[in-house]
């Protein structure tokens, strides 16, 4: 009987184990195919062709229709996409092996000729693509054979791979471009998991699953992009079910949405830094002590907590975390919020409180002029007002001149710039430090040629950024950028405020969605609806 009992016990144990394993193996919910995903966002695209449209509204759509050779995932690492492997043959030449058996939505085959066509069109076309400037010294492509292509640069270019992973570098169907002519903007053809169906201006854009996609077919049948400029209206659409996904949701309602099981909030650290820039050549800001004083005067925690309310992260430097070459500049330790220190620094520079509290030096008041626009970046107007008040608390009087974006942009691009301060943002669209540090801080990148609005000039930083740009050794590049950021930290010409967070609010039935740190990508290929 004992042996029988033991056998029975073992049987039970095995059964239990089998059941347990069985329970683990069963997925929580089976992925469902089908359905239409409705997305609402603030603006309509200008064009669905990366050649003409480099802003997010267009990119959100065409990033699902077109694919590039290399993909950037949510961790900002590079992966093969339309290219299966690559080799650096020489400092100015990278050879790509292309994925076989891939077709465009119009049935034509994807091959090296299509890659060459796309790059030639963008770089040498008339007119060249809107993103050509971002590509730096990228010169074009050469066909080696049907499935092998060489990408050539005019000089060694470190960020070459990330440039090819840009959302704008999606490969287009040459046949379609030639056939459609200018109408290609309204009906792009690529290799992506979704194909274009219809675009009614200012109303909707419709995409449909591409049944012959080379990878995992998209679970969704259709995607509809709708336009709702008012934030309040977008949130209401989400509540009523008119929309499944909201881009640019209202930051204040996020807390309630997170608590509500009917909705889900997806977030990822973005790549844009919004900052208050200082004109380093305009007295009194040419004195690094005055600039440091301004940094100490700003209570970043209060701004982040009360104005951005969890919809953004404190800026960790002039770059966003995740960007290749990022270094945490530890600004909270270098420039902590300390009014006393701010005033002490100003005193060191010769500024002392006048009768009404505003600092004075030799009979002159410490008055700074400030150029700002409202609504270009989230809460930019509110931040300007808040920092203005904080500066006043340490005796710095800031006079803000508000302009609408077009006028402000013209001034930012202009030379000379007569303002001391300006509110601006910068996104590292290529995910490589080069596309930020070079145009922003190289001493020869003054507007209108470059974007060194602060007129920062440091010969060592110049050398570092130039070297890093030309090196193809990624380890060496990282080191160089680190040193450059260390130098910048000591003589800051920015007051970095926040790092964007890419936040998308959806109904809980939307599954398989992950927000991409690069704000231009809206990956829908794995999204499915649980209903």
């Amino acid at each position: 009987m004992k042996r029988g009992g033991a056998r029975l016990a073992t049987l039970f144990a095995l059964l239990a184990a089998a059941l347990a394993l069985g329970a683990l193996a069963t997925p929580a919910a089976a992925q469902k195919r089908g359905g239409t995903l409705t997305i609402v966002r603030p603006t309509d695209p200008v064009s669905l062709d990366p050649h003409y449209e480099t802003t997010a509204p267009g990119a959100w759509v065409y990033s699902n229709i077109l694919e590039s050779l290399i993909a950037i995932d949510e961790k900002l690492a590079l992966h093969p996409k339309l290219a299966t492997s690559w080799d650096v043959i020489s400092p100015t030449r990278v050879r790509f092996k292309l994925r076989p058996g891939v077709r465009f939505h119009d049935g034509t085959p994807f091959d090296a000729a299509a890659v060459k066509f796309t790059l030639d069109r963008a770089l040498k076309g008339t007119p060249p693509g809107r993103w050509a400037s971002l590509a730096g010294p990228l010169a074009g492509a050469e066909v080696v054979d049907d499935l092998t292509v060489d990408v050539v640069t005019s000089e060694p270019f470190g960020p070459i791979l990330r440039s090819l992973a840009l959302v704008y570098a999606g490969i287009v169907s040459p046949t379609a471009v030639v056939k459609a002519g200018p109408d290609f903007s309204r009906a792009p053809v690529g290799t992506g998991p979704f194909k274009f169906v219809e675009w009614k201006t200012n109303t909707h854009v419709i995409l449909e699953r591409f049944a012959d996609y080379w990878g995992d077919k998209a679970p969704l049948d259709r995607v509809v992009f709708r336009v709702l400029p008012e934030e309040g209206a977008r949130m209401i659409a989400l509540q009523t079910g008119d929309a499944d996904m909201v881009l640019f949701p209202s930051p204040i309602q996020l807390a309630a949405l997170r608590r509500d099981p009917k909705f889900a909030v997806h977030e990822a650290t973005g790549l844009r830094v919004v900052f208050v820039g200082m004109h380093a050549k305009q007295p009194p800001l040419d004195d690094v002590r005055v600039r440091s004083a301004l940094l100490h005067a700003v209570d970043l925690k209060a701004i982040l907590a009360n104005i951005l309310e969890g919809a953004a992260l404190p800026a960790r430097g002039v770059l966003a975390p995740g960007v290749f070459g990022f270094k945490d500049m530890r600004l909270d330790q270098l420039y902590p919020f300390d009014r006393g220190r701010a005033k002490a620094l100003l005193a060191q520079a010769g500024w002392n409180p006048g009768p009404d509290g505003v600092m004075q030096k030799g009979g002159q008041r410490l008055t700074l002029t400030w150029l700002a626009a409202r609504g270009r970046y989230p809460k930019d107007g509110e931040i300007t007002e808040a920092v203005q008040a904080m500066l006043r608390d340490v005796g710095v009087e800031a006079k803000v001149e508000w302009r609408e974006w077009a006028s402000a942009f013209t001034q930012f691009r202009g030379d000379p710039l007569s303002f001391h301060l300006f509110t601006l943002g910068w996104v590292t669209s290529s995910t490589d430090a080069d596309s930020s540090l070079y145009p922003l801080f190289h001493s020869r990148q003054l507007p209108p040629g470059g974007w060194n609005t602060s007129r920062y000039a440091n010969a060592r930083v110049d050398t570092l950024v130039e070297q890093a740009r030309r090196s193809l050794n990624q380890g060496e590049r990282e080191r160089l950028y680190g040193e450059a950021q260390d130098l910048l930290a000591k003589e800051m010409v920015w007051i970095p405020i926040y790092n964007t967070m890419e936040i998308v609010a959806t109904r809980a039935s939307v599954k398989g969605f992950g927000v991409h740190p690069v704000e231009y990508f809206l990956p829908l290929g794995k999204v499915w609806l649980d209903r």
Partner: protein
Amino acid sequence: MAGSLTFALRRLLLAVPVLLGVVFIVMLTLELVPGDAVAMMLGEHATKEAVDRLREHLGLDKPLLVRYAQYVGQLARGDLGRSIIQNRPVVDELADTWPATLELTVAALLIAALVGVPAGVVSAVRPNSSFDALARLGSLFGLSMPIFWTGLVLIVLFSLWLPWLPVGGRGSLAHLVLPAVALALPSIAMLARLTRSSVLEVLHEDYVRTARAKGLQELAVVVKHGLRNALLPIVTLVGIQAGQLMGGAVLTETVFAWPGLGRLMVKAIFARDYVLLQGAVLVFALAFVLVNLLVDLSYGLLDPRISRQG
């Protein structure tokens, strides 16, 4: 009738210099105001060479007068040019948006006229009554609430709390209700008040008193004698409202995501896309001239004593 026809033709002919004048002023203003369409389009990462190259490609580096002459020449051939930012013929852009604006404007005007004018008439006939007081108070509220506020409140009421109507966009008749009502509210108020004031004035004219003294019914008096003359300023206001609603419904179009001409114009202004803006302004101006013409023609119908002007 022949007189009306020549009048109309003359006015339409006069409209041509008006339209050309508007186009020139728009072009001139965009030239003087800071902001460059191409630079903004290419954004922060563009190099100066890229911006200059594109400007040259689009012909934007030519002097103002040359561009104006080119534009007028194209216009004569019916070509409204290509939008700088959209790279699409302006005609297509307008064709997409103009019907939406027309639909919204007509709906709002109808609501305003059908509610405002009768309310004003009743107020004038029964001045200082409780209806009059209520109507005047209602008018005041209708006038003082900002449209983006009333719009959002309407959406909350009728799309969220009472899920009767859609949140925004254009599609069915249901989509038209909220934006048309929101847009009409200030007009209802204005029309009611103006009607009341005009009718009141007219009601005390001697010839009206004479009619009353003759024993005619109050209503007949009002309708026959009073309303016809009171209609003059009312019709003028309707004409003005029509003009304003067409181009000025920007805020309403934004709140309700209505894909109309107003939003298109704002987009063009902020992007400094003068080609697109001129096209939109031309449509707007043309509609305006036509409405004015209709209003002026109606003066003749309403009060034959008025000699033809212009």
